[in-house]
């Protein structure tokens, strides 16, 4: 399946409260009209593989629900929150602007995180599970001692995370250092540090594994490495650390 970009090409022009259908190129004509802003809406990216392609590690049923229901819901609610934000900003309604922040963080974060997650996974026959080589491989050995030590650390932190959240392998692009971090709910990795770039993330919300692994999150974590797409993680790493 082709991988579409995150941002759809559909754009909406929002006129201000004046109710006029201003074109997106409208400028401030000095007539007292405010800028018309474009609001980008987001749509569900296609998975780069079939729903059943990650079996038996992650079942097709989970992949379909996770993608078509959970991720889609985050996108729908993110778009809704952005629209409300836009209206509130246009009206100068500060209390609504601030009130919407948690919905934007949650739903926008959900969209960001899941978009990365689909790329972090790949079927075994397409290289899933193959450990990283070259610069990322060396960086892992340098920072964690060995690839196995890294996996162990991520699994431990992922299993210990209470409630819902994510466990990440990130790159601190300023310090040029790899880190393992967890975030709660749908907080993106940047909430743990503005310089952190996610290389790979593992969703440890129960919906990510429950139908198959039930309460045994450690089994899910142990197995998910078999479909880990280290090629993608290496690409991200090499872009930041050429």
């Amino acid at each position, binding site marked *: 399946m082709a991988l579409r970009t995150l941002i759809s090409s559909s754009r909406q022009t929002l006129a201000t409260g004046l109710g006029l259908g201003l074109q997106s190129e409208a400028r401030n004509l000095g007539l007292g009209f405010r800028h018309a802003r474009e609001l980008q809406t987001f749509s569900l990216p296609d998975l780069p593989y079939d729903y059943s392609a990650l079996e038996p590690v992650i079942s097709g049923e989970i992949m379909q*629900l996770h993608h078509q*229901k*959970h991720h889609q*819901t985050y996108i729908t609610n993110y778009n809704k929150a952005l629209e409300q934000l836009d209206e509130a900003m246009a009206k100068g309604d500060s209390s609504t602007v601030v009130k919407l922040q*948690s919905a934007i963080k*949650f739903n926008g974060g959900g969209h960001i995180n899941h978009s990365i997650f689909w790329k972090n996974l790949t079927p075994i026959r397409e290289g899933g599970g193959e450990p990283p080589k070259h610069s990322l491989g060396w960086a892992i050995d340098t920072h964690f001692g060995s690839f196995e030590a890294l996996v162990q650390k991520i699994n431990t932190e992922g299993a210990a995370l*209470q*409630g*819902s*959240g994510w466990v990440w392998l990130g790159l601190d692009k300023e310090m040029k250092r790899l880190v393992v971090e967890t975030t*709660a*709910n*749908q907080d993106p990795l940047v909430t743990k540090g503005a310089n952190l770039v996610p290389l790979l993330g593992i969703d440890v*919300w*129960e*919906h990510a594994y*429950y*139908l198959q692994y*039930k*309460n045994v999150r450690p089994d899910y974590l142990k197995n998910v490495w078999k479909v880990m797409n280290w090629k993608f993680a290496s690409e991200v790493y090499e872009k930041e650390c050429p």
Partner: protein
Amino acid sequence: MASFCSRPFPASSHLLATDFSRPLKISKLLYLQRKGQFHGSQRASKVLAFYGLTTPPYNLDALEPYMSQRTLEIHWGKHHRGYLEGLNKQLENNNSLYGYTMDELVKVTYNNGNPLPEFNNAAQVWTHDFFWESMQPGGGKIPGHGVLLQIEKDFGSFTNFREKFIEAALTLFGSGWIWLALKTKEKRLAVIKTSNGVTPIVWGDIPIISLDMWEHAYYLDYKNDKVKYVNMFLNNLVSWNAATARMARAEAFVNLGEPKIPVA
């Protein structure tokens, strides 16, 4: 002293299982004798406190088809039991937490918002005990007279309460619980959302019913259809009997109306 009032639930309530093989949740002293005691050695005995796993006051298939036996088996048998065993293991190492009732343990480990490591397990044992008892076979419909009056007073109407409850369940971010609780300072009922294992008792409020919104509570039966789950709970599972008993007990602690002071 072992306490039988480890949750706001009168021991005489008909909702307690009459089958006494159900383990009572009291803190017990367990003296472990080291091997070789018989041979006259006076080694120190190890003292452990532990809590027991309470069983739901109905069979695991009694809530079908609204909450499947499979869900109860895993939710109670694995998750709830897991929290309990985790708690007991933590308590083995930490004698300063020995001897509390479950209510007290939850509040102490909450530590005014800086939870100790034991809080998660203790709180989740408490919340799940409370949750099983917040449901009953043939539940749902509308509350009994006293609770209904209070709900109408504090929410305007039962319908409005329902809407607020459902809205809270659908707008909770992440894992957590939805409560109908009596706020002790405001002296009124309110719908409360909490995250992970937090319970309103840590703030001194009195919970009346609860709904588990962790995904493990509904995913096997409803997948991601939270709307259906919450509605099924309100229509068919919520135990207004338990709510009545809890409200009755709460009124010993909170004055909901004018106090009736007897005139000599």
